[in-house]
């Protein structure tokens, strides 16, 4: 019991302490422009202590910014799942479809969000006020879709022949086969894809906000860089990291639920 507590409570704190020390030392030696931990805390305090305050368009509490970002991510992510899951199913079910579209997927997959965003903005240029939001959504969806697509395809291909035989012997209709056999059987894989996709969606949001200047954690980060308030860059980085971590944990809880089923 004692060693358990030591492992899980004390060791992470030691890790954090080491990083803080390195940070402090860096500030004192080679990175003169880097704000020190204490200065970062000092400057960030109003944003953390009043996390939902709204003092201006680009001057809001950190959790309020996070909330904006999460909403945008949720929209883009939902779009990614709605488009990605059926594509994954087609890839898993049809060899012809795979041969036709797998190469292009493999080529599009490694393209960075920074490359997609301008295209997204161009695509929705006509939308006027909403152009930046639509462009950001497009970028999030396009970038975060791939793990869902590929994992769903793997899940569908990995369905045991036994289950397919049951469907065949019982002569289940296509609809029934899909909903009673194919989807439940590939759910565990699909959720792995969903989790990875969410991670990417969160990565992309920051880039998208930075470029479009939308209010949100990423937008705030970029604005504070331009305003030379470097402490807030660190605040944003930490916030982004913590939120990403929490999202991943939440998804893996859901994922585990489906693994045992």
């Amino acid at each position: 019991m004692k060693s358990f507590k030591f492992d899980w409570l004390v060791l992470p704190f030691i890790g954090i302490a080491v990083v803080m020390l390195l940070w402090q030392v860096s500030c004192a030696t080679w990175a003169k422009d880097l704000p020190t931990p204490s200065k970062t805390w000092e400057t960030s305090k109003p944003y953390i202590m009043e996390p939902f305050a709204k003092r201006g368009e680009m001057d809001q509490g950190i959790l309020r910014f996070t909330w904006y970002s999460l909403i945008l991510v949720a929209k883009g992510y939902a779009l990614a799942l709605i488009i990605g899951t059926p594509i994954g199913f087609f890839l898993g079910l049809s060899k012809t479809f795979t041969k036709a579209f797998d190469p292009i997927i493999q080529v599009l997959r490694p393209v960075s969000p920074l490359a997609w965003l301008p295209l997204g903005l161009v695509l929705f240029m006509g939308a006027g006020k909403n152009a930046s939001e639509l462009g950001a959504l497009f970028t999030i969806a396009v970038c975060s879709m791939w793990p869902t697509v590929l994992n769903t395809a793997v899940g569908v291909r990995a369905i045991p022949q036994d289950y397919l035989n049951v469907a065949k012997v019982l002569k289940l209709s296509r609809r029934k086969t899909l909903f009673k056999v194919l989807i439940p059987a590939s759910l565990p894989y699909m959720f792995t894809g969903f989790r990875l996709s969410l991670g990417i969606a969160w990565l992309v949001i920051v880039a998208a906000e930075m470029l479009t200047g939308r209010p949100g954690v990423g937008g705030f980060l970029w604005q504070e860089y331009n305003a030379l308030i470097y402490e807030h860059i660190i605040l944003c980085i930490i916030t982004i990291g913590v939120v990403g971590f929490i999202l991943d944990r939440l998804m893996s809880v859901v994922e585990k639920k489906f693994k045992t089923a």
Partner: protein
Amino acid sequence: MSNYVELSNLTKIYPTPKGDAVIVKDFNLNIQQGEFITLIGHSGCGKSTVLSMLAGLSEISDGGIILASKELSGAGPDRGVVFQSPSLLPWMTAYENVMLGVEQVFFTASKQERAEIVEYYLTVVGLADSMHKKPAELSQGMRQRVGIARAFALKPKMLLLDEPFGMLDSLTRYELQQVLIELWRKNKITALMVTHDVDEALFLSDRIVCMTDGPAAEVGEIMKVNFPRPRERKAVMEHPDYYKLREHLIEFLEVRAHRKPPTATPPSAPLKQIVPSNNNVLNPV
């Protein structure tokens, strides 16, 4: 008596890069309505291939199957299949697994009637108390009981069993053989079972079909089993003919299964085809 099931010149060929692999060649067998047939042979001889062609899960390369005066094509719930692994869908309860098939076959019946069918069969196989459990909560033997219930609940024209008890320990296997034979007797379903267990075959069957080794496996010999029914395991094993038949089967499997064509005349109606001497030319391996 007319034949209920006819397998004529049933052949299975898999194309391989090295040429065609003939798994089963000119397999001929006629089955009467209500008969219990076991197909016995060495592992990999192609007996499961014959069964899966009957089930419609494997394409027929040549020859054909007639079931109740109709040529078979594809799979369908008129044949209840019990697989070697129970093949239950793990996200559904035992009840839902059986219901999946029942809904398919009795789509005109009322909800109430369908529920009664499912409950009845699960109760008969001894799962009255566990029907709402998921397969993961059931023992291997219980899962296979669900598999049996699922097959019978469809009221199929024919029952196909692919080594259904192969993965069970011997005590559970005895229990389940008893469950199976009782259900079969009550429902009078024509059954074909694949096994490599000699005692299981003797206990259950009306006739035992011995298959020669593959490639190009075929019917080696057919043995009639005339123990009185209903059968009790003890009575069957003490029957004066039991060990004679058992010896005969084992001798076939040990010696004659490897040779083809067998020269001995089968004790029952000779259904086997005399294979022409150029048979070996067709063997690629």
